[in-house]
């Protein structure tokens, strides 16, 4: 499906970004893999060979965007999967924590797409997918205002970017998973296996969290020509959680 296509993936070395990168490589794409950890990027190159173009770069280093993105080839797709999850309860609100979450989850995808658009790096007919969440646009969880706000912002970005880029045939959509079984799950709750099991039981489909591959499959769909008439939308992948 993606032979001859070049796509950029942020957060490419872990979780959903990694699963997406592998899926795209398996379908013949070249992937500009953005990550902070040069060692993990090197492992990705070992896996994908010449099809992986590693870009070791901290996405919160906004002053470097122009310089870093200048050598990137013209793209047929962009996936923003980089992000962090931290609690920030009102009674212990930390502006520093808030700004750290906003920088990578919210400002980075906007600055990235803006720089790619400004630099004419987005081919006509390309597709952008931002990794949102049901937490924010659909539901709330106590203590997560900073994180949830960033994920709701992405659904707004998708709508506005979709309108701004439609004249070039560029589509912009979000994927909104519920909890996904990645290393971030552990960071967020730091819960015991029993507590995690109770939380997983809230998901009607299989009483489990999504796998990264299941979310990657939805991202892959929105990137593909199968979604040729979808833009500005948010695709929920939550095992029925928000159907309740």
């Amino acid at each position, binding site marked *: 499906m993606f032979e001859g296509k070049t796509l950029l993936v942020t957060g490419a070395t872990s979780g959903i970004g990694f699963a997406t990168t592998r899926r795209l490589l398996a379908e013949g794409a070249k992937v500009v893999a953005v990550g902070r950890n040069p060692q993990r990027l090197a492992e990705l190159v070992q896996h994908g060979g010449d099809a992986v173009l590693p870009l070791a770069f901290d996405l919160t280093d906004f002053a470097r965007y122009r310089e870093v993105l200048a050598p990137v080839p013209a793209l047929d797709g962009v996936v923003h999967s980089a992000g962090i999850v931290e609690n920030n309860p009102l*009674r*212990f609100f*930390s502006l520093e924590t808030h700004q750290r979450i906003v920088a990578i989850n919210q400002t980075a995808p906007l600055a990235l797409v803006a720089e790619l658009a400004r630099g004419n790096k987005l081919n006509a007919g390309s597709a952008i997918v931002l990794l949102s969440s049901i937490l924010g646009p659909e539901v709330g969880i106590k203590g997560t205002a900073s994180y949830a706000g960033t994920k709701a912002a992405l659904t707004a970005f998708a709508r506005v970017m979709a309108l701004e880029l439609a004249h070039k045939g560029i589509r912009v959509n979000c994927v909104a998973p519920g909890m996904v079984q990645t290393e971030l799950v552990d960071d967020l709750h730091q819960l015991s296996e029993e507590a995690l099991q109770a939380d997983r039981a809230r998901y009607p489909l299989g009483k489990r969290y999504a796998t990264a591959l299941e979310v990657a499959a939805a991202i892959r769909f929105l990137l593909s020509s199968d979604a040729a008439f979808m833009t500005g939308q948010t695709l929920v992948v939550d095992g029925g959680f928000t159907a309740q």
Partner: protein
Amino acid sequence: MTIDDFIEKFAFAIEVEADTLTPDTRFKELPSWDSLNTLAVIAMADADYGVTVTGRDIEASSTVNDIWAIVSSKSTAAK
């Protein structure tokens, strides 16, 4: 730092009056205890003591003193 100071901070975190808590209070049996309290205790330990307490630590603890033991053993400020 004493356990009395800690109880004050613990009470602030979980939004109860400090004089309703003792070191032996089984905090998860308080009627107002909920998931946000877990996050607030984690945030309090970080903000006031520079200590990482995990959700697992709280699950494994019963009394206020159990949490204090974790915080005081990890914190230089608490000694």
